[in-house]
């Protein structure tokens, strides 16, 4: 196994570069267990902040939820004040009026008001079309009745509950019920965090946002399942009594690069949606999707590592085989490193050295058949 010694020597120089190199070379050996507690506390804190904000500030609901109308008028010379004048003339002085400029120089006047009847909204359409000197058919209008919001909220809640139930059953069936608990808690965390960001920043919530929230859950779940599947594989392979956090730590190291790369590969198109689609080209829907997805993806990557994994570790360590006895936990970079020298825990956790789960040494890795086969 001299090859491995070589690599270890190569990655000798410490620092960021070495860490990145170890990631690329699959020799990374971070100690995640030390961060478990902190990770959970942060997640809890963020969730509490989100809940508090939800109850105090609430959500900035779009017209689809509370009823009202939005007009989008392509304009050339019209100013916000002109539009304000028109709206005041219709005794709708409290309308929200914005002027957006597209990349190609065309301007869109966006007017939002609480008119929730089709007839009344038609009047406004006509007035705005007159103002911009265009036919009314060029004006994009959305009018939502007052009770429609309850309906879609109800639909979303129902979809969410069914989704949670189905996923819990599915994971319990394909993996383990303890993992279902971990996945569920981490999904709730992602949901809370995303909604919390929308509440704290008072960004408007639209049906597109709802879709994004549900997608986020899907992504977060995908991440979590990949980790759990590997943990299951690793624990099945572990013969000796081993604290579960050790197994989990090994799993997290093994799946870290996948998580990172997947997140990068997924976030790239979404950032492109946000930056090019929404900001430069001014497509409203794209922006609505993109922002929630960006927040959710980041949160999903975090929760797989620091919410789902610690919870499953805690649950599994109640089983005698995986119990944590307080004896030095152990990290292993990769399952078959054999005689590789135990590396010191790397950067990333230097701040609080007194965590009880300090990593030392290496668990005896189960020899792989491959060696014989070769």
């Amino acid at each position, binding site marked *: 196994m001299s*090859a*491995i010694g070589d*690599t270890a020597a*190569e990655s000798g120089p410490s620092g960021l570069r070495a860490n990145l190199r170890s990631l*690329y*070379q*699959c020799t990374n050996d971070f100690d995640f267990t030390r961060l478990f507690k902190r990770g959970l506390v942060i997640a809890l804190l963020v969730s509490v902040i989100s809940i508090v904000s939800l109850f105090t500030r609430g959500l900035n609901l779009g017209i689809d939820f509370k009823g009202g109308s939005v007009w*989008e008028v*392509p304009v050339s010379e019209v100013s916000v004040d002109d539009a304000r004048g028109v709206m005041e003339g219709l005794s709708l002085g409290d309308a929200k009026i914005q002027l957006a400029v597209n990349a190609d120089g065309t301007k*869109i006047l966006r007017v939002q008001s609480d008119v929730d009847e*089709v*007839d009344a*909204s*038609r009047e406004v359409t006509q007035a705005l079309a007159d103002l911009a000197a265009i036919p*009314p*058919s*060029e*004006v*994009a209008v*959305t*009018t*939502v009745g007052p*009770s*429609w919001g309850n*309906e879609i909220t109800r*639909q979303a809640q129902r*979809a969410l509950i069914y*989704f949670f139930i189905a*996923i819990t059953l*599915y*994971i319990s069936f394909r993996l383990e019920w303890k993992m279902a608990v971990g996945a569920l808690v981490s999904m709730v965390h992602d949901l809370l965090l995303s909604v919390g960001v929308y509440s704290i920043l008072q960004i408007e919530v639209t049906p*597109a946002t709802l*879709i994004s929230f*549900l*997608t986020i*859950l*899907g992504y977060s*779940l*995908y991440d979590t399942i*990949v980790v759990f*599947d590997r943990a299951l594989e690793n624990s099945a392979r572990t013969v000796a009594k081993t604290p579960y956090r050790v197994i989990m730590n090994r799993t997290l190291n093994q799946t870290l690069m*996948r998580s990172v790369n*997947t997140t990068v*590969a*997924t976030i*790239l*198109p*979404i950032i492109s*949606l946000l*930056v*090019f*689609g*929404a900001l430069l*080209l001014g*497509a409203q829907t*794209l922006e609505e999707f993109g922002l929630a997805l960006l927040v959710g993806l980041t949160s999903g990557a975090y929760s797989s590592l620091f919410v789902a994994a610690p919870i499953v570790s805690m649950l599994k360590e109640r089983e005698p085989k995986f119990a944590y006895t307080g004896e030095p936990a152990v990290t292993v970079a*990769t399952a078959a490193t054999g005689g590789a020298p135990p590396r010191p825990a790397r950067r990333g956790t230097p701040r609080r050295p007194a965590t009880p789960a300090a990593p030392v040494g290496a668990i005896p890795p189960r020899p*792989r058949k*491959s060696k014989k*086969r070769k």
Partner: protein
Amino acid sequence: MRRKGALPLIFFVVFTLGTLTWTFLVGNSPVLGLDLQGGVSVVLQPNGPVENEDTLDQAVDIIRNRIDALGVAEPDITRQGETVLVQLPGVENQDRALELVGQTAVLRFRPVLQVLPPVGDTPTTSAPTTTAGDGATTTTVAPTTTAAGAGEQGLADLGGLTPGENAAGLQATTTTVAPSTTAAPGTASTATTVPAGTAAGECTGVEDTTRLGDDGLPVRLNAEGLTPRRRDEACNTVLLGERDEDGNVVTRYLLGPTALTGDALSGASAGLDQSGVTWLVRPTFKSGENGIDKFNAVAAECFSAATTCPTTQLAIVLDSDVISAPRIQTDNFERDQIQITGDFDESSAKDLALVLEYGALPVELVPQQTQTVSATLGEDSLRAGLIAGLIGLGLTVIFMVGYYRLLGVVAVASLTLEFALVWVLISYLGESRGLALTLAGVTGLIVSIGISVDSNVVFYEHLKEDVRNGRTFRSTVERSFGSSFTTIIKADIASLIGAVLLYLLSVGPVRGFALLLGISTVIDLIATWFFIRPAVLMLARSPRLRNNNAALGMPNVKATA
């Protein structure tokens, strides 16, 4: 290269390219949703609980008929649970479409007891029996003959307008022959609140006379001097108005209990009279006691100016608005030999015919969300989505090839093939099932790039790890794939569960999103098995790549131990 694995790969590539070529040859292309090409979308929901599922289906059929009659290219009228979604891509006259879709009102025929001026006008003609036509409608009847002279008769009668009657805009309608009316249906506006009660609006009970004052008028009137819509009950005497195009009341009518409803009609058509100049409307009643008999009964009363119909006028009321009150000029009609003439143009005549034919829906539907997208804004969104998607795709390609080298190229090839398949599928579904690609769907597609790449990453990371642990790239491909694929299946199924639930439980854009997400996930599974696996196997067997881990993005390990 005829080795295990090459066959499925060749099959997959040939299949994809073949279907793609076929799609182009047949000329299939994705149907754009109305948010991308402009148009009108209306979400309707029943007002109150629906007892019978069939009535909703019936309502959907009626709406579909109305829309078809309007000549919309690819209308999409679907029932999703209790919600009816009407999408009219590319509709130009959006207001008109909205009116027709929204018109879920109840059509009633009521005898006119008295004609009153609008509130605010000095009541110059408040005599109980306004004779000689109020000008709103003059009806001449040529009962069984569709008579060439009918139109002239009606027009001639115009001269008989009562002096003093404020006829502002009223001479618009001269009704020759039989029942009905004129006035663009637009004046009836969209259905908002129609009284609850019997769905068809029929009077089955007894009149509640306690609501009438000493002067014979209803006690409770609104600011316009009319019976409020919610009090417009079938059996009672009500005071309703006829409105002009701006929605102002021009004439008020005191109306007796409902004599019959739109149910009695079996159809209506608009056409030119024999001179080929004047537009008229021909309603057809059903035969028998629930059709023409009922109509003739009330026609006889009106013709003889009985106390139940002293004015000899029969009002046609749609959604609490009087559309017209033609004078009945005979007591016996043939059910299919009736025509309404007046100052129609083609559009108003056709609109009236539509309202008569499909006026009454079996259930009242209230518009919950109406959306009008202009074609220009739609195009802008489509372009923005496409550009953003392509840039995002480019970034992902750069990342994958930069990180995984040759394996990254395989991933990109697989992504391209998957995209081609999705294109084929949505084009096909668009042509055959009317599936429209909305902005939400486009977003779903962009999001699915991530899912597709994910499968590759799971597999490649597994490979790298195994190589890191001392295996040769070549020896470990099958093994890594097997173990990664179970993971991918588990995760993809979770995604699918989400997509299916979203699709089933939601309405509108969310469904489009979920559908495309689901489609891409399934195609991704197929591509992973039929393309990525054999392609990577082939790379592994290539003699030139042996021991060239760098080109494969593998860790730098000489695995010859």
